[in-house]
Every structure is written in structure tokens, then in C-alpha cells.
């Protein structure tokens, strides 16, 4: 049986490679963002999505070693498809080629091409022609050096700024990333980064060993009973993310059905550049019974904190330590976290329990405001959680219940079902108490933290035929307690619809519309009593992506929004045209974008192409023009370089940005250079 499959695959692959007129476009961060990520609503959300995309691209890509959790992390395959793939791989052995996926029931050619963007087969029997970027992605060991510089002088670097606010270091961001994999079981990584304005010192007493941010890990996998051992920086994903982790949350995007279920990937090394949100210490996963694993983790991570004499009033997460004032918050306290989790996986059932304990070396207090009555104060808290996931043919059910001490209860439960071969439906119900607390949560919901929210989400995806598909969702939610800028209990809803048309493999068109109704405070003129009103925000995107010739691709995008609150409506629009030229080792990407927004509520976020393992989601606010040019060149098979130049010119202002990051003048130029050595 197997030799016949091999012969068929070779014939298919050979004929496909010859008949293939256009190379498969390899995945870029922008493409991944467009396919999977949603429209960010805040800068924090945009930054979080950027980091998650980078982490997603750092995942193992070998189809033969990817676990079920790795496959679920991409959010493309349904639980049933993942189950079928793993069963096929167990029965028939390793995949010989990516084309062998067609033999699995439930996998058709469009799914295969979609998956082929992210996964590959190492040492395949039939090797499709690799472009340089794809070859880079499949290399597992590399050294990456990056240099970024904004040419204009920011306020923090000027001489007329007060000395205690002046930035100490140079105006460039420098970072070094190293990753190495040995024999497939041992991985190690290192990240050293200095933000613009931060200086490099050697102060072991201040916990600074050179650059401002240093992060690394050592990971050992599959050594008998020891399934995983991580030393250094890591993240722990459990259940649906009510307590910790929760997978790569890319917001509400194109995958309205499969991505509502978070993947409980267990331990993962931390590879993002954000300076908070990771655990630092040691963690192990052991197989204690045939289908049961136990994970124990311990972490002692430094955190920034704004201190008063005895307590911390807030925990900043920007990771900026540029001037004297920011340096006093650097690593002001220690966060010690310990926890243990048990997981049972057998066939269609996946269940687990988790306990974590977190302690802050200085107690956390809050400056009282109307909206933070239920925020955490104190020096320690504990979380307990139970989760369950069950797959049965076309139906997948998941649930998690968590409780924080002190605090309240949170639960999320949902199901994914394929009602017909063309229709997938997901329903998720959630209820998070106002006083539920977790620092590393990443659960499904409207806000970034699983707190003070209850709602029902229904998502659907319908494939009309191989060319046309539509997807959408409807989310009705309620915030029982006060929130930032909304001082009453509030109801709201959000719906989204997206239609994609792919007439040929090289052309994609899509149209997308989203509406969100949410309440907001109205400013009270003469009293301190707040009234709230429901504001409606509508976003739409029209995009077209087509290949003119084998080397030239064009992409046009029109994006806009309107926001109405108490009768007044404001609008914003952005238009972008991208050009991409692929000639052998040289790739040139250019963008020309115009934007015109009435106010900050209508700011537009557009995903942009960036150097490898970086992701850009700039915010277009005001009136102006933005140009981006990205040149990649592969000198040899092991040495690649990138040069990126971005220019933004505003027509409605003479100063860009606020505070210490402000630039005088209407233009902003940024240069980014990166070199990658693979081995």
C-alpha cells in the first residue's frame, strides 16, 4: 500500500510542480494577520496581536512533529480535522509530503493550500520548489540582528527637556535574537533588546546585564517520562485561558468558528519581545500515567511598578526604561508564581485541573476611581480552574470554570459543530464576575481581561463553493459593573460579516463589515454625575489581492469607519496600495497609503509587511500619507538581509505624538535594518 502512495505522490507532485505557473506565496506576517487576526480596537490590542503573530510564526512547523495543540494554535483546522490528521499519522506513519494530506478524509485542496502556508514536511519525498523566505522559515536555527531608528528627534532626546526626563541611551532600537535546535529535542533561544532611549549597562545589582531586556530559554522535549522541561522564560497555556495563557489570541478575525476555542498548549517557551506577560523560572511536564501528564511550574519574574513608600500603585507593562523616572520603576518588585496542573487526554476527551499561587514582593494598592473598585489589591492571590474538552465526530464541546481567591467565579463554555459540510457554527457563552482576577488570563471576550463580562457569541462560516465563502459572528454582551470610561452597567453587541471570493488561486477579494455598539461616558459640564450613552462604531474593509505576473503582485485595500454618539457622527478612511516584486533572491515590497480620519475614534489600523519576525500594525490617525519600502535580499542560503524605510507625513498637524515621544514637524521617517544568519 505505502509504495503505491509514494508513487502516486511523486507523480502528482512532479506534474503539479511543472504545471504550477505561480509559486505558492509564502506566508508573511501581514498575510497571517489578514487571514487570522481581527481589527484591533486599541493600541494595546494591536501590540498584543503583533506579538502573538510573531509567536505564531515561531511555532514548530514540521507536520510530522506538530502536536494536536500546535495544530490547534493556528486556528484553521476544526477539532475533527485535527483528530483525523493525528489518527492518519499514527496509522500510516510520518507524512511523506504535504500533498499526502489529501488522503485524509475531510481535507480538500483549498484546506491543504491554506495549511501549506504554515506547515511543511521536513525531508519530504517530493520537494516543492522553495522560495528564500520559505527556506528561512523552515530553518530552525538562526541569529537575527535588528536595528531600528527614527530619524527625527523625539522630545525625550532634546536638550531643552528637563534632565530627569531626558532619555539616557541612543535613539535606536537594537535587538538580537538567537534560536538553536539540536537533534529536534533540545531548543534554546535568547533575546536581547534595547528600546530607543534605553542605555546598556552592566549593573548586576540593578539586574541589568547589558541590554535593558534580556530573555532566554532552554527547552528539552520527549526524554522518556519527561515530556518537557523549560528553563528560563516561558508561558503556560491552560484550558480556555481563564487563568493563564490561552493560546495565541489574534482578536476576532476571519476564523469566526475554529478560533473561539483556545488551544491548551501547555508549556511554551516565550519568544515575544514584550517585557511582561511571561514566567521566568523552571517548568516541567511529566507523564505520570499512560494518558495523564502533570505540569509543575515555578517562576520568579521581575516586574515594573510605580511605588509609593510602602506599596505599588500600578504595574506598568510598557517595558520602557529610558529616563530617570522610568528607571525607578524598573523591576521594582518581584512576582513569584507557582502552580501545578494535571491533564488527562485520551481519545476524544481532554480534561484538566490547575492551581496557581502568585505573590508580589510589595503589596499592590490602587488609587481609587469609580471603575477600579474590584481590581486586585493585596500581595497574593490564588486561582483554581477546571477545564474540559470533548470531540465527537462533527461536534466539539469545551468548558472552563475558574475561581480566584480573593475574588469571584468565571466560566466559559461553548461548542463548535459542523451542521452541514458547508456550514460550521460556534456558540460560546461566558460569564466573568466583576471581581475575578488573574494576571495572565487571555480568555474569550470583549475585553482583554476575563472580568466583569457576560455574553453569548454565535459564529458561523459558510462555504458556497470552492471560490466563495462567507463568515460572521454576532456577540451580545453585558458589563455588569463599571468600566473605564463607562460608569454604568452596560449592554452592547457586536456583529461582523465577511465575504471572500477567490476566482483563481492567485486572486482574492474580500469585503468585511463590523458594527459594535458600546456605551461610553458623556462628559458632564457642571456636575460630577456621569451619564452614559451608546455609541455605534462601524468598520468596513474592501480588499483585493492579485498576481499580475509570476513576479509582480498587487494589493489594494480600502478601509474606513464611522462612529456615532448622541447624534454626532465622525468618519475615517484609509486607502493603501501595495506592490510586491519577487525576483529570485531579491524581494521588494512597497506601500503607498492615504488616510483621513476625523478623530481618534476613527483611527485605522492597517497590517503592514515588516522584516522577518517583526510585525507592524501602525495606527493611521489624522490626515496624511504613509509610504513604506521593504527590500529583502538573500546573499547566500545562510545569509539574508532586510532594509525597511517608512515615511509618514501628516497634513493636519505640526507635532506627531504626545509627551516624550513627540516629534516636531509633520513628517516621521523610520529605518529598520535586519540581518539573519541561519545554520
Amino acid at each position, binding site marked *: 500500500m505505502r509504495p503505491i502512495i509514494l508513487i502516486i505522490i511523486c507523480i502528482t507532485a512532479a506534474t503539479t510542480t511543472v504545471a504550477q505557473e505561480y509559486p505558492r506565496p509564502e506566508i508573511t506576517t501581514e498575510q497571517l494577520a489578514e487571514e487570522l487576526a481581527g481589527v484591533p480596537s486599541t493600541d494595546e490590542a494591536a501590540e498584543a496581536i503583533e506579538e502573538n503573530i510573531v509567536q505564531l510564526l515561531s511555532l514548530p512547523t514540521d507536520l510530522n512533529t506538530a502536536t494536536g495543540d500546535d495544530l490547534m494554535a493556528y486556528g484553521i483546522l476544526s477539532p475533527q480535522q485535527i483528530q483525523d490528521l493525528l489518527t492518519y499519522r499514527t496509522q500510516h506513519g510520518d507524512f511523506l509530503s504535504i500533498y499526502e494530506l489529501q488522503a485524509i478524509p475531510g481535507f480538500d485542496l483549498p484546506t491543504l493550500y491554506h495549511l501549506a502556508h504554515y506547515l511543511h514536511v521536513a525531508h519530504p519525498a517530493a520537494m516543492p520548489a522553495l522560495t528564500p523566505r520559505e527556506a528561512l522559515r523552515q530553518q530552525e536555527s538562526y541569529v537575527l540582528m535588528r536595528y531600528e531608528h527614527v530619524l527625527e528627534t523625539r522630545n525625550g532626546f532634546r536638550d531643552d527637556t528637563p534632565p530627569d526626563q531626558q532619555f539616557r541611551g541612543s535613539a535606536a532600537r537594537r535587538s538580537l535574537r538567537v534560536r538553536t535546535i539540536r537533534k529536534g529535542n533540545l531548543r534554546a533561544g535568547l533575546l536581547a533588546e534595547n528600546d530607543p532611549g534605553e542605555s546598556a549597562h552592566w549593573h548586576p545589582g540593578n539586574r541589568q546585564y547589558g541590554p535593558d531586556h534580556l530573555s532566554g530559554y532552554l527547552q528539552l522535549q520527549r526524554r522518556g517520562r519527561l515530556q518537557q522541561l523549560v528553563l528560563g522564560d516561558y508561558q503556560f497555556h491552560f484550558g480556555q485561558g481563564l487563568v493563564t495563557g490561552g493560546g495565541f489570541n489574534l482578536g476576532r478575525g476571519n476564523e469566526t468558528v475554529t478560533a473561539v476555542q483556545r488551544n491548551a498548549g501547555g508549556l511554551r517557551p516565550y519568544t515575544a519581545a514584550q517585557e511582561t506577560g511571561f514566567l521566568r523560572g523552571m517548568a516541567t511536564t511529566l507523564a505520570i500515567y499512560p494518558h495523564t501528564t502533570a505540569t509543575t511550574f515555578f517562576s520568579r519574574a521581575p516586574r515594573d511598578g510605580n511605588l509609593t513608600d510602602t506599596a505599588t500603585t500600578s504595574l506598568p507593562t510598557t517595558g520602557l526604561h529610558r529616563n530617570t523616572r522610568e528607571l525607578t520603576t524598573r523591576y521594582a518588585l518581584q512576582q513569584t508564581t507557582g502552580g501545578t496542573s494535571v491533564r488527562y487526554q485520551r481519545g476524544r476527551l481532554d480534561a484538566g485541573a490547575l492551581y496557581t499561587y502568585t505573590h508580589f514582593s510589595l503589596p499592590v494598592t490602587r488609587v481609587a476611581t469609580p471603575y477600579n473598585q474590584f481590581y486586585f489589591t493585596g500581595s497574593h492571590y490564588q486561582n483554581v480552574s477546571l477545564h474540559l474538552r470533548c470531540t465527537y465526530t462533527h461536534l466539539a464541546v469545551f468548558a472552563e470554570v475558574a475561581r480566584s481567591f480573593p475574588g469571584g467565579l468565571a466560566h466559559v463554555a461553548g461548542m463548535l459543530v459542523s*451542521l*452541514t459540510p*458547508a*456550514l460550521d*457554527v460556534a*456558540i460560546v457563552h461566558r460569564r466573568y464576575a466583576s471581581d475575578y482576577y488573574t494576571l495572565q488570563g487571555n480568555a474569550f471576550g470583549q475585553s482583554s481581561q476575563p472580568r466583569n463580562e*457576560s*455574553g*453569548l457569541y*454565535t459564529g458561523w462560516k*459558510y462555504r458556497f463553493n470552492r471560490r466563495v465563502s462567507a463568515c460572521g459572528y*454576532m456577540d*451580545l*454582551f*453585558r458589563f455588569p459593573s463599571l468600566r473605564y470610561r463607562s460608569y454604568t*452597567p452596560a*449592554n452592547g*453587541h457586536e*456583529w461582523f460579516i465577511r465575504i471572500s471570493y477567490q476566482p483563481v488561486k492567485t486572486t482574492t477579494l474580500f469585503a468585511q463589515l463590523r458594527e459594535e455598539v458600546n456605551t461610553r461616558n458623556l462628559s458632564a459640564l457642571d456636575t460630577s454625575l456621569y451619564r452614559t450613552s451608546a455609541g455605534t462604531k462601524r468598520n468596513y474593509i474592501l480588499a483585493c489581492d492579485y498576481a499580475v505576473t509570476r513576479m509582480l503582485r498587487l494589493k489594494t485595500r480600502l478601509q474606513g469607519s464611522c462612529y456615532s454618539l448622541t447624534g454626532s457622527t465622525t468618519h475615517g478612511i484609509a486607502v493603501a496600495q501595495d506592490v510586491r516584486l519577487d525576483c529570485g533572491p531579491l524581494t521588494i515590497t512597497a506601500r503607498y497609503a492615504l488616510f483621513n480620519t476625523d478623530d481618534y475614534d476613527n483611527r485605522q489600523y492597517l497590517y503592514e509587511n515588516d522584516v522577518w519576525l517583526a510585525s507592524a500594525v501602525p495606527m493611521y490617525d489624522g490626515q496624511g500619507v504613509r509610504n513604506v519600502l521593504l527590500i529583502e535580499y538573500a546573499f547566500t542560503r545562510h545569509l539574508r538581509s532586510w532594509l525597511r524605510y517608512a515615511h509618514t507625513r501628516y497634513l493636519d498637524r505640526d507635532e506627531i505624538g504626545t509627551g516624550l515621544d513627540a516629534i516636531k514637524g509633520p513628517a516621521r521617517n523610520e529605518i529598520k535594518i535586519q540581518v539573519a544568519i541561519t545554520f
Partner: protein
Amino acid sequence: MKKPLLLLVVAWSYHACAQSSITDIGARAQGLGYTASCLSDAWSTLNNPAGLAKQRKPVAACTYDAFAGFSPFNRLAAVVAVPTSAGTIGAGVYRFGDNLYNEHLLTAAFANTLGIASLGGRIHYIQYHADGLGTRGLISISVGGITQLTPALLVGAYINNLFQPTVDRENNEQLPTRLTLGTGITLSENVLWTAEATQDLGQATTWKTGLEYTVQQTFIFRVGVNLSPDAYFAGMGFRRQRFLLDYAFQHLPGLGMRHQATVGYYLSQPTTP
């Protein structure tokens, strides 16, 4: 002979009292978010009367719709639908409220098929009663139609209170006219998707959608969503021999839950030749 007697008994067993004229009812309709414009069952008597035209067997049903925690908002209704040679006749009664304030409605409906379209109308007598303020009774008419454009596509529309009768002349209060436009698409032999837009003059448009999934023609699962006012719905149904059992609930964020249970029964005789 038995059928007309049955009709009379059902029709006169309740006093007709004042009634809220918009009577979306039925656990099947509620499970689908009240997207009843394209549904054909006994409850079409109180929803879209044109749905009666497709009823081939005589059926009687009753329902109780309860608002959790506040009993004056509970509703009770009973209907019967009988196909005849001239078309299908339906009759129903409905009650809302408690002793302090209540509304009663008595309705008679008729529907027939013309080609691919079904047309129906109903006339109802509504009585409002408020303790201390008195009793008002009025008559109102609603009409509706359903068109089967393709075997999988239905389009329906109906108007409640076509002529806006006046409830209270001094305060210029009239029964609201409401226009509903909806569609039902059979995505597969087991899946029905419905969507509807409802416009009540003076209010925002309500957008509704629902999905129904049938397993082995016995178990039915329903889900629905409404916008303005926001609500989500879910329900289940069970079909066996002559019984039709349905349950549905509705959640209004911030306001509470409504639960509804419906029992239907196919009466013995087949359609008259």
C-alpha cells in the same frame, strides 16, 4: 361534525378581554428568535396567518410563556388549526397579565394557497383591562403572505393591525402597526436558517435571525438572536407520533429570562378531500 364543535368549544372557553395586539408566541418561534414569518405550524394563527395554508393535518396546541421572577408578564395561549376544502381555518385565544392588568385576545384566521404564494388574514378581538381604569375592547385585522420562490427559499411578510384601531381617543392611543419581512432558507434537509426584520412605527428596526437543526426528524435544536432589543434565544423540540413538544428560553441582557413550553397534538382526522 366533530370538528366545528371542537372549534366552538375552544373559541368560547375564555372570555375575550383586552389584548396586547402583537402576539409573537410559540416555543418553536421563540427558539428561532421569533422569526415566524416563514414558519408553518399551528402557531401561525397568532404569528403570520399565511403559514396556516401549509397545515395539512388538524392540530391543536397550547403554550405557557413565563417571565422568570415576575409573574404579571406571563402569557398563555391555545390555538387550533383545521384544514378544509376552501383553505385552512385557525382559531386561538391568548392572555397576558395578572388580575391588576391583563389583556385577552380571541382570534380567527384563514389562509389559502395561490400558486407559489400563500395568503392569510386574521381578525381578532382584543380586550384590555386595567384595575380601576376600566375595560376596552376592539377589533383589529392582520394579513400576511408567504412565497415559495425555490424549493429551498421562502419569503414571508405580514402586517399586524392593518388599520390601527384606536384604544383611547382622549390620549390618542392606537394599536401599533407593525410590518415584518422575513426569509427562510433550507440549507440542507436538516438545517433551516431564518432571518427577519421587523419595523414597528416609532421604534427602531428589530433584526432577527434563527437556526434550526433537526436530528432524525425527532429531536430539534434551535438558536436565535435579536438586535434592538438585544436578546438571544435557544430551544429544543421533540416530535413523536402525534405529539409536538417544544421548549425555548429567551435571555434579555440586564432584564432577565423568559421560558416557554408548548404542547401540540395532531387531531385524528386527515385533510378533507
